[in-house]
């Protein structure tokens, strides 16, 4: 029952949101394919080269590379490829149209494709589109591609989890964190 506003945006952000219907087998299938494609450095299956370039640039704006890997380094676009051929297939036309629109905007600005613009120019164009279903959907897909379990095609080598300090492990023993460790130490000291 938490973060309700943000949580609800998951539904709104992905445009149409038919993706929330059950497509579990399709996801697994798409994810397997995405994982194979990524490891082979292969082409994308469900999105074209021009779209892949735009989605790479947009996802790296959302979760940019710095001294640490960014979204595309982590395989987010491979995740998107699988998702747009699977559980988010309903959003694929809208995403493709959004990519084309960004390329057109870039072209009328400077004659280049969106991915060829400077980082600052890309940011400006995206800021003007923050509230569009396209940006909402790509934002959602980017974060899924970065942070969801690697079985879904992104989150290469679980690097995002490593960066945030998450360890996927089924059993832990207390103390769990700094403050409960200190709490137990104080209790021990009190007794001694």
């Amino acid at each position, binding site marked *: 029952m938490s973060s309700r506003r943000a949580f609800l945006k998951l539904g709104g952000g992905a445009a149409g949101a038919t993706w929330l219907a059950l497509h579990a087998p399709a996801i697994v299938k798409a994810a397997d394919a995405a994982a194979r494609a990524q490891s082979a450095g292969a082409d994308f299956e469900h999105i074209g080269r021009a779209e892949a370039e735009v989605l790479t640039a947009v996802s790296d704006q959302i979760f940019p590379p710095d001294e*640490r890997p960014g979204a595309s380094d982590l395989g987010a676009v491979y995740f998107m490829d699988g998702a747009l051929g699977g559980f988010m297939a309903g959003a694929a036309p809208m995403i493709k149209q959004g990519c084309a629109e960004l390329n057109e905007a870039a072209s009328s600005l400077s004659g280049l494709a969106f991915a060829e613009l400077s980082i600052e120019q890309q940011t400006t164009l995206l800021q003007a589109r923050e509230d569009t279903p396209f940006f909402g959907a790509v934002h959602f897909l980017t974060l899924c591609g970065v942070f969801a*379990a690697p079985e879904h095609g992104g989150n290469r080598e679980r690097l995002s989890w490593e960066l945030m300090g998450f360890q996927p492990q089924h059993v832990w023993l207390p103390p769990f964190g700094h403050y409960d460790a200190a709490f137990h130490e104080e209790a021990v000291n009190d007794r001694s």
Partner: protein
Amino acid sequence: MTDHDPGVRFNERDNVDFAIIGSGAAGGVLARELSRAGFHVVVLEQGPYRTASDFSHDELRVFVQGEMTHHPSWNDPQTHRQSSRDKAQAVNGIPPALYSRTVGGASVHFSGNYWRMRPIDFKERSLLGSIAGTGFSDWPISYEELEPYYTKAEWEIGVSGAPGPFDAPRSKGYPLPPMPIKSSGVLLEKGARKLGLNPQPAPVAILSKPYRGRPPCGHCGFCMGFGCEMNAKSSTLVTMLPEAEATGRCEIRPLSTVFRIATNKAGRVSEVQYLDKDGQQHAQKAKAVILAANGAETPRLLLMSESSANPDGLANGSGLVGKYLMGNGHSVNHAYFEHELNEWKSIQVTRIVLDFYEADTGRGFYGGGGIDARPLVNGSPLMHALTIGGGGPMPLRWGKAFKDEVLYGFNHHVGLLNSTTSLPVESNNITLDPELKDDQGRPAMRMTYRDHDDDLAMMKFLQDKSEEILSAAGAVKYWREPVEPQPFLAHLLGTCRMGDDPATSVVDRFHRSHEIPNLFICDGSSLVSSGRGQPTLTIQALAFRAAEHIARFARNGEI
């Protein structure tokens, strides 16, 4: 999913003693108690029979896609509106009535907070007087009458905890010691004590030690919203239902979606009509039917069962079926602390503050509630990134600053969840949508709900208190989510309220419908008031009590 061996299979033409609709917190208890008492029971559950090996830590499937909350076989949409003046809109994201469709029901995916209600919850109307525009009422039973069943539920289910300073009187302690404290619990305790409050260990239906053949919690962290892979969460899936099946008198029939309870010429219920996973129609004959499908599906089914004899739906002479929906109010505070908390480990809640439980007329509005510390949905990587990116404190939800905050926040975040009373308002209700249908032609569930202004005021009041606690605990940064009418409810209460007067209630004090002698209703819908949050223990205490009376009626030929 492996096929589950039901142990016993009844023929649909067998006139079994009880057909129970729903296998969740209440249905599971009723199935176990009645089968142990010697009766033949069929439990119809719309979800599949998932067990520990079917559960995972996969956020995309479980949380984002709602693997357990969506209908397993077809699209079953819901609509929502705040007022009967509005046209309800279909909801594509989180369903307005959020519950789990799986054997064990919402007890499989809950966080396991097991608060008892207190004596005042049962008689607050008499103590405080009426509240205009609401159906604020006393219960027909008292805390003292329910107390033995609270104790029974805690011991039969397996609850870890320790009594707090304001707890209601109890006849027996908890069966298990409290769960180990987390950093969020330490900080809540520290901040609350500085303010002179009285934090206490959270009672939870999660095992701190081995209990009745089940292992203790492994602290994996994937608890709220997920099924437990250790069987340490005390769902009915791993407590009541296996014991019911072990009697050889109880069949749990999964993937069975009831669409109608049929009546005969004598005005008694005669069979339960349902759809299997392929949409094929079936009917199970039964001498009596117990509806335990949750506070949203239960009234929906009664309304769907209308006929010329019952034009307003079954058991609805009062006109109150579906009305007085209560969800408990919720508000949220967030904070960052200097050192790493690792809130992604272990269970959601280890400490609570119940100093504001009782209503206080000095506040200028009705209400009471509790505060707990927990990671909320920030305790798993993807949900953390999605929610902090969409509703968090940052000026931008993308870019370098966003990345820095997502990665920093995961280990430094703690949330406080404030849970409050909900006033019963007649215009908050479950009805059948007049237009939208599910893929099988059943009318979609329509929720009309807007929190009462006093509920919203109480949510805000506790948020102010929580902010003081976070500040006193030394948070480096804190912020709050805006308080606004809740768009979805995970607690579904009050829609077939219990009472002595058939004109103002749907079931009597023994959960028998006032109008149909062999139709019983026992789940969240039975509650007359909402409590202060965490209703499941009360629902199960009611189920243990109801089972005892229903068994007595059956033995005495009084059904």
